[in-house]
């Protein structure tokens, strides 16, 4: 009987890229009706393991059994047929197709050999209703937000798989409400007997939804444990191989003086754009970290776009060092010493075929002008110092960046902007997709930069992160700056309250 076998069992999986082992003798067992978290630092080999299970890569060594039968998925389509469906870290479905076409690509309902569009539409509607989405399935995917696209991708994978569902960082771009919706769905699927593998860097979510956890480190298995009796600190040290230094920030006496006194050299007054963000006032002083909080779609990123000249303001003024400044394009913003690390680093940031060093040096080169090239020695030194301080792995300056794991790519892009030593750096979700160890490193780095007099604007959905680093937090709701919390007021509860009170009022 099939029941006596685990649903999916991988033994001794090994995989090397160009002779460098990404996975070495990893065992992984997934049961029916189980949500299994796969954890590890950036570059630990999580995505690689997933890709082997789902037919993207072939394994060098090891065995893989599904329902007790040996399987070797040769392609994604093959894995889907076997019952293994996936939402990848990098995939965003196809923007040029409609929602319905995306949901049923490769398995369109047919009548007399023809694609039956009416039936496809009907099924799409029915499918999405189960996820609480009531949207026009004939609209192009590109007309929906990232969060909705993610849910559509999950709906597709769930519907496809039937046996095993694999999610690689599915919640990275969802807000807490959407995460809850997703988890409700996952729990229901677990009841149905599906085996679910989920990769995430949010430990809260791991404890909220998963039953068991498997931890990888440097391509090796650290262990598989029941979450019910695994203390959080122990899980963290399994991941890092060491204890994590505490990461919450001690509020320094004198923080308040930074924010309340002293002239702010960078100020925005009545700055806004119709249909994007209502006019706001914002002044940033040297050495200050201003946090921006709010729900997804509340206008956080749009505020950053305005400040960095990606969008043009249609009201208000920007003043820098007492002189009016025009921020009509990113170039002019960079000219004023601004830097911006966008949220969608995957699409906006990396140049895949360039080396890590080139990617890091890119913005610095641009700000110096192309006439004054950075010497290769300087570039090398620069890259090495950031690889060390941000713990980018593998620690090679010459690798094309596309061969790095998702989290390590993010670190390299962050390094790119830090390298320009801007006077004002805007970070949109700086720690998304970054593991808990590197997370702490980045927060430490932010503090050090401030101590050196840089100003920072940090946009984040993680309130813990904001309260840890920000001297001041602006709360957004409905594309309006609704509250400002200073110094001791900056607490998770206060931020939540500010968001909630506005949402109810509206």
């Amino acid at each position, binding site marked *: 009987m099939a029941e006596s076998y685990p649903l999916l069992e991988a033994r001794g999986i090994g995989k090397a890229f160009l002779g460098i082992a990404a996975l070495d003798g990893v065992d992984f067992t997934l049961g029916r009706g189980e949500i299994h978290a796969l954890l590890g630092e950036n570059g630990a080999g999580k995505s690689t393991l997933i890709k082997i299970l789902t037919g993207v890569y072939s394994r060098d060594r090891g065995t893989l059994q599904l329902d007790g039968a040996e399987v070797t998925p040769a392609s994604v389509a093959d894995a889907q047929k076997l019952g293994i469906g996936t939402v990848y870290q990098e995939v965003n479905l196809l923007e040029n197709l409609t929602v319905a076409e995306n949901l049923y*690509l490769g398995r369109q309902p047919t009548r007399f050999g023809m694609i039956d569009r009416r039936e496809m539409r009907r099924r799409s509607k029915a499918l999405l209703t189960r996820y609480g989405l009531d949207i026009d399935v004939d609209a192009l995917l590109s007309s929906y937000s990232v969060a909705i696209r993610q849910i559509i991708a999950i709906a597709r994978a769930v519907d496809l798989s039937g046996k095993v569902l694999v999610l690689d960082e599915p919640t990275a771009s969802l807000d807490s409400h959407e995460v809850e919706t997703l988890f409700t769905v996952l729990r229901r699927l677990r009841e149905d007997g599906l085996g679910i593998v989920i990769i995430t860097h949010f430990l809260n979510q791991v404890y909220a939804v998963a039953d068991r956890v498997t931890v990888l480190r440097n391509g090796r298995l650290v262990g598989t444990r029941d979450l019910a009796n695994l203390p959080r600190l122990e899980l963290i040290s399994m991941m890092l191989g060491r204890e994590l230094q505490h990461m919450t920030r001690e509020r320094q006496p004198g923080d308040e003086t930074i924010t309340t006194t002293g002239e702010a050299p960078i100020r925005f007054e009545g700055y806004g754009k119709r249909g994007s963000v209502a006019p706001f006032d914002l002044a940033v002083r040297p050495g200050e970290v201003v946090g921006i909080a709010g729900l997804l779609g509340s206008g956080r990123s749009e505020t950053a776009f305005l400040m960095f000249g990606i969008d043009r303001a249609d009201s208000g003024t920007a003043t820098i060092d007492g002189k009016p400044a025009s921020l009509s394009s990113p170039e002019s913003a960079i000219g004023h010493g601004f830097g911006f690390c966008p949220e969608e680093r995957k699409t906006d940031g990396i140049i895949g075929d360039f080396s890590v060093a080139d990617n890091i040096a890119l913005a610095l080169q641009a700000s110096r002008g192309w006439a004054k090239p950075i010497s290769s020695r300087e570039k090398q030194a620069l890259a090495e110092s950031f690889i060390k301080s941000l713990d980018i792995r593998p620690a090679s300056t010459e690798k094309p960046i596309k061969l790095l794991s998702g989290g390590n790519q993010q670190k390299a892009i962050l390094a790119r902007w830090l390298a320009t030593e801007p006077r004002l750096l805007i970070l949109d979700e700086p720690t998304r997709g970054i593991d808990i160890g590197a997370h702490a490193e980045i927060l430490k780095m932010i503090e050090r930069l401030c101590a050196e007099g840089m100003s920072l604007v940090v946009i984040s959905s993680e309130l813990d992160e904001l309260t840890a680093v920000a001297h001041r937090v602006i709360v957004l709701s409905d594309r309006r700056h609704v509250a400002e919390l200073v110094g001791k007021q900056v607490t998770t509860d206060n931020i939540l309250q500010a968001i909630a009170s506005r949402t109810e009022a509206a």
Partner: protein
Amino acid sequence: MIHTRNLPFITTLGIFILAYILCVTQYPNMLSTRVIGNLLTDNAFLGIAAVGMTFVILSGGIDLSIGSVIAFTSVFVAVMVGSLGVHPLVAFAAVLAISTIFGSAMGAMIRYLGIPPFVVTLAGMFLARGAAYLISTESVPISHPVIDAIQGFYFRVPGGGRLTALAMLMLIVFLLGAFVAARTRFGANIYAIGGNQQSAELMGVPVGPTTVGIYALSGFLSGLAGIAYTLYTSSGYSLATVGVELDAIAAVVIGGTLLTGGVGLVAGTFIGIMIQGLIQTYIVFDGTLSSWWTKIVIGILLFVFIVLQRGIIWYSDRRLAESRLKEV
């Protein structure tokens, strides 16, 4: 509901209708079924080739070998039938098989050797042209009862027009092409690959076989276009149809298909062909204009459409931002 992705097509259709009305107000005769019948017949071979090009461009590729394959086909058929006395239908079948295999081979090189379509089909262009020269450098006339029968076949349409076998062949190819694009999995996969090949692959689209299939189809249709061309001119000539691939690309782009792939309609290409034919017909009616005006107008239209496509992308981005606003 009008999709923004269909906007280029609707614009093209609008331009075509408008241009036609303008032509007709000047030369009422241009509305006659006789003119329309000729328009279809004269552009049949180009239209057939352009259907293949539509699929290639929809997938984000390009096929530069089309004109040479047409020339090769016509010479091959002419020599087989005219000089060697092979039955035309046998020659047709043989040449369709050759051009399909030729297309598949190019598709396989693109996919499995990772060489860009531009380079592979450029090589294919030289190869097919060279092969045509090898067979014969002369213009080879062709005559056979079967060929005469096909050439002479037509339906009479009210108003004195003739719907010839060539015109019907082209219309059938367009109808089948539109069907394949909109109603088959193969078609859906082509749009997917044109949208984003990597995503398509991860979503389980069989990218390899589909790519080979696309170029095989384009090869097949080039062969069929070559047969149509042979029937149209009653001869085969290896120097003929130079640059036809560019006319086909122009028709596809004017028809609203994005050169980057993933967006477009086969019906759009039909309108693109008709616009080109309309300009030529107008020049014939006018009698004083140089035929080079066709090229100039096509050039201008191409510019207009590329700008238009940019504009639409910009517009839909803005609509996206607005709809997100409403979501909140």
